[in-house]
């Protein structure tokens, strides 16, 4: 398995919503080295999810430039294909398909690119086993608990052995033991794969596990953890 994380560079990123009324991102510059583990922190509404969406090419910025592996994303002709090969995403709200079982949800990214269903199934099953969810693989996503959904979502992000993972609060709705389990898995992946990890978190201990922290406040990015008295004292998910 090659060890090759994706280098990410963003410059002058700007994103507004509601005809400019909401400034989600304001002149964000960001550089992430290949194989780096970056934590993004910041209060609710500061633009964290928006930033991840831009990096994933799920949305396009109003201004600014994003490079993945030194290539401008505007030059990537088929973002879907790029994501299929290189990217894993853990969404803040899981986005599992309710009528599919846990293991089927994990299989989904690989199904889209073809390949033998049996092999894909085995791979997804092994991944869920290693995450400690082996006993729930045949349960439909609709019937999984919140934490089980989170684990399934993490497994789905890793099933294609990506070299970049964008994770929006991957430990946001699980107990601390499961949270640790998820970190372990991400750790194992980044160690083995050398992949780049960008992780949004409200949890300082999770953040301290990473190599570097970037904070977002009102759509602006700051290096390190920004302490501020006006920052909400209670992070929403903990």
């Amino acid at each position, binding site marked *: 398995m090659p060890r090759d994380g994706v280098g990410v560079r963003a410059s002058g990123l700007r994103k507004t919503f509601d005809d400019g009324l909401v400034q989600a991102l304001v002149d964000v510059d960001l550089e992430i080295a290949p194989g780096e583990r970056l934590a993004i922190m910041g209060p609710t509404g500061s633009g964290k999810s928006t930033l991840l969406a831009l990096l994933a090419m799920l949305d*396009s910025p109003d201004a600014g430039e994003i490079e993945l592996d030194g290539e401008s994303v505007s030059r990537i002709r088929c973002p879907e294909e790029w994501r299929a090969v290189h990217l894993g995403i853990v969404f803040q709200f899981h*986005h599992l398909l309710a009528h*599919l079982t846990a293991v089927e949800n994990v299989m989904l*990214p690989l199904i889209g690119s073809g390949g033998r269903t049996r092999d894909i199934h085995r791979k997804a099953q092994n991944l869920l086993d290693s995450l400690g969810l082996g006993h729930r693989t045949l349960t439909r996503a609709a019937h999984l608990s919140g934490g089980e959904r989170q684990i399934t979502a993490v497994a789905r992000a890793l099933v294609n052995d990506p070299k970049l993972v964008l994770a929006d609060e991957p430990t946001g709705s699980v107990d601390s033991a499961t949270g640790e389990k998820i970190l372990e898995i991400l750790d194992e992946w980044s160690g083995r794969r050398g992949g780049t990890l960008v992780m949004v978190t409200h949890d300082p201990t999770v953040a301290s596990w990473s190599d570097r922290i970037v904070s977002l406040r009102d759509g602006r990015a700051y290096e390190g953890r920004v302490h501020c008295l006006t920052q909400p004292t209670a992070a929403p998910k903990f």
Partner: protein
Amino acid sequence: MMFLESRNLLRRPRRTVLTLIGVTVGAAGYMTLLAAGAGLFAEFQDAISLLGSDLVVQQASAATAWTSRIAPADIRSLRSVPGVNRVTEVVVAATRFLGQKYFIVFGLEPESTILAKARIVDGRPYRANGAEMMVGQRAARAIGLAAGDRVEARGRRFLISGIYETDRSILDGGAVMNLEAARSMFSYGVDTTVVFVDVKGPQAIDEVMLVITDTLPHLEVSRSDMWVSTYEQFVVVRRFARGLGVFALLITAMWVSNTLHVTILERRAELALLRAVGWRKRRIAVLVLREGLAFSVVGGFTGIPVAALIVWGLRNIGAAGIVSAKLSPEIVVEGVVIAVLAGLVGCVPPLVRALRMQALEALRAT
């Protein structure tokens, strides 16, 4: 390959059943209307072939038999055309009669052979005295008449001398009476509506047609077997039926489109998620079209028994026997093919919409 397709169809029974109902109704409607049109057409062809004559003559500008007028002078001219063996005058009237909205009365010459093959199931033939008529058995059943009944129609009293049966519902759904009686009752004066011409031998047919067309340009002559085909009214009826069929399909397409659209609204996030995890647009299009294809093929086939049921119902309650629909294999095939096409076309607009939007936008919607 069918991993997600099969699960989407089987694990969402509500959506699947609703969509199937839509396609089934559309396909059945289309087939039924085509069958009704074809049935009507076949009826007339049958009735005409029963007459056993070679040529049919009617007024050139008339759209239907009952609006055609042929004067006695023309009858004489027709009789004098070389090669003509026999000329039979018929009055066809389609009117409100005996309480029926739409009733066909045939006025026949006493020596006419038009009913030669008819079975008289009750009573006896009518006498050519203008006070008697025979009623087809379908009409008799619909109105509730039996031989020996007396009825009053258009101010005249008639004896129902008998009930006949011909297996031709255009005839069985009407009545026959003396030519003269029909003329005066329906105010045709001395005119005739349709003339049947017998020719001396098959080789003379073309020659006779040519002479009639040349010397009597205000008349229209056609071979009996072709008469119905050139019969404008029924062409119109068939077009109308097909038009209705297309309309039914449009409704199907809209239903399918709507069902798929509603579910694609629900599914927008799903399709967006597939894009987010690396499914290409083409693969997603294949997914949606495969599901649409499954719906429309199954719906097309379940439409067949439904259409058969409706056609069976039409045959049994068909007013005065004018409609006797036939569900032929051609119609069934056409119905299924058209249903499949309509189903697929219905898939396209919601699909295009789902693929055009930013993946994130759709994901946020849930």
